[in-house]
C-alpha cells in the first residue's frame, strides 16, 4: 500500500477536523446512586467504534458545557468482539461497543446524537458496567462443563466425530455477552428465565462425547422454574446475537430433549 492512498484530500480534512460527534451517556456513580445523563462532543475521526469514543472521553473527561467529570466506567477487554465484556445499550439497542461503528450508527445524519446506556436488565455497578453474574450462576446450574477432574489420570477422552464437532462449533462461539438475555421479552424479574445463552451451552456440552455424562442432569435443571419452558420464541436472541449462534435451533432441540427426559423420568424414576 503506497502512502498516497492514505493521503486525505485537503477539503475533506478541514471538513472532518471541524466535525464533532455528539454522545449522550447515562451515568450512575454507584449501584444505588441516581442515574444522570451527561453529553459529550468528541472530534470526529473516521472508522471510530464506541470503545474508541469512550477512550476519547477518558483522555479528556469534560462534558459539552465545559464541566469536568470522571472517565466513563465500562467493561471491556479484547476490543475485538471476542471477550463479551462491552455489551451496552447503544441508541437504545443492545450491542457490543467494540463492534458498533460510529460511522454506521450516524448513517447519513452526522449531527445525530449517539446515546449510551447500561444494559437494562442487569444491576448497574457503575456507569455502563453492569453485574452479569446471573449468567455465570445459570451456567453453573446447568453444569455447562466437561467433568474431567479425578483423583487419578483419566486417560484420553472419547473421540469426537467431525460431524458432531461441526454442530458444536457455532455454539462454542458464545462470548457470554448477555445480549440474548437483554433483548429477550421473557428474561425479566417476573419469570427469572434462564436465557438463550445457557440453553445453547447446555446443548454444546450435551453433545460433547465426554460432557454428555451430565446430560440428564442438565435436562432436569432446564425443567426447573425459570427454565426452557419460559421461552416465548420471540427469536430476538438469534437476531441480536453478535456471534450468530443458532440459538433458536438450540432452544428447539433442547425443548425436545427436556420434554423426553421429563416423560422418561415420570415413568421410570
Amino acid at each position: 500500500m503506497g502512502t498516497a492512498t492514505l493521503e486525505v484530500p485537503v477539503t475533506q480534512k478541514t471538513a472532518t477536523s471541524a466535525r464533532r460527534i455528539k454522545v449522550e451517556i447515562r451515568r450512575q456513580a454507584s449501584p444505588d446512586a441516581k442515574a444522570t445523563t451527561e453529553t459529550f462532543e468528541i472530534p470526529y475521526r473516521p472508522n471510530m467504534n464506541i470503545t474508541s469514543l469512550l477512550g476519547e472521553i477518558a483522555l479528556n473527561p469534560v462534558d459539552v458545557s465545559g464541566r469536568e467529570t470522571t472517565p466513563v466506567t465500562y467493561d471491556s477487554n479484547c476490543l475485538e468482539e471476542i471477550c463479551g465484556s462491552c455489551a451496552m445499550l447503544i441508541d437504545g439497542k443492545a450491542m457490543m461497543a467494540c463492534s458498533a461503528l460510529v460511522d454506521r450508527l450516524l448513517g447519513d445524519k452526522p449531527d445525530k446524537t449517539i446515546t449510551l446506556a447500561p444494559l437494562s436488565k442487569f444491576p448497574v455497578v457503575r456507569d455502563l458496567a453492569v453485574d452479569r453474574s446471573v449468567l455465570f450462576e445459570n451456567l453453573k446450574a446447568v453444569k455447562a462443563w466437561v467433568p474431567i477432574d479425578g483423583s487419578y489420570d483419566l486417560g484420553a477422552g472419547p473421540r469426537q466425530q467431525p460431524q458432531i464437532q461441526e454442530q458444536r462449533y457455532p455454539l462454542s462461539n458464545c462470548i457470554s455477552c448477555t445480549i440474548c438475555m437483554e433483548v429477550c421479552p421473557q428474561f425479566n424479574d417476573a419469570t427469572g428465565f434462564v436465557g438463550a445463552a445457557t440453553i445453547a451451552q447446555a446443548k454444546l456440552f450435551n453433545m460433547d462425547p465426554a460432557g454428555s455424562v451430565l446430560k440428564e442432569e442438565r435436562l432436569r435443571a432446564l425443567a426447573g422454574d425459570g427454565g426452557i419452558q419460559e421461552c416465548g420464541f420471540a427469536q430476538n436472541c438469534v437476531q441480536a446475537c453478535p456471534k450468530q449462534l443458532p440459538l433458536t435451533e438450540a432452544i428447539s432441540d433442547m425443548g425436545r430433549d427436556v420434554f423426553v427426559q421429563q416423560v422418561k423420568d415420570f415413568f421410570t424414576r
Partner: protein
Amino acid sequence: MAASAPPAPPSTTRRRGVQPLRAAEGHSYLWRRLHSLSGIVPIGAFLIEHILSNFETWNGPVAYGKQVLFLNSLPLVRILEWVFIFIPLAFHAGYGVYIWLRGRSNVNVYPWAGNWGYYAQRITGLIAFAYIIQHVWRQRFTGVDLPHNPGMAFHKVQVELHNPWMLAIYVIAMIATCWHFAYGIWLFAAKWGITPGDRARKRFGYICAVVGTGLCIMGLASIYAVVWKYPNAPVNALPDQHSSLTLPASTSLATS
C-alpha cells in the same frame, strides 16, 4: 465470566436483578407445557370442529340446525363439553393471561418479525379471551337453550349479528382467534423441538399460514351466510326436533 462482577453477595440476601435458574425445582414446566399442549388439543381441535360446524350455515338454517342436533346427540355430550372444552379453555385462558402479565414486550425497541409474533400472540389471545367470555355467556348459557332447541341456533346467531357492533366484534374475534391458533401451532412445533431447523420452521410457517387463513375464510363465510345469505331465517328451522330431545317426564312437569 467476562464481566468484572463484584464478589457474590452472601446467600441470605436476595440477589439484585433477574434471579438465576432454579435448577430442577418447581412445577412451572408442567403447567407451561400443559398450556402449550392444551392450545392444540383439545382447544385447537375444538376450534376446527366449531368452524367446520359453523360452515354448515352456508347450507342454510336447516342444515345448521341438523349439525347442532348432531353435536348435541353425541354420547355424554355434557361431559365432553366440560372436559374437552370449558375446563381446558378456562385453564388455557387463565394461564395465558398469567404468561402475558409476566412478559415484557419490547417490540418498540426491537421491531423484528418474531418479536411482532410474540406480541401479536398475546394481543390476539386477549381478544379471543374477552370475546369467548361474552360468546359463551350469550350463546350457550343465556337466551334460548340450544342443546334442547337445535333448530333455533341459526336464528339466535342471526339476531346476535343483527347488531352491527356485535358483527364487528365477531369478525375481529374470528381473525384474532384464527391468527392465535395458526401461530400457536407454529410455536408449538418450534418449542417442542418438532421444527428445530430454520428452514423447517419457515416451511412449517407457510403450512400454518394456510391452515389459519383457510379456517378464517370459512369462519367469515359463515358470518356472511348468517347475516346476508339467509336473511330472515325462521325462529325454529327444525320445529319437530323440539320435544324429541327433552325427556317426556320433565316436559310434562314443566308444562303442567
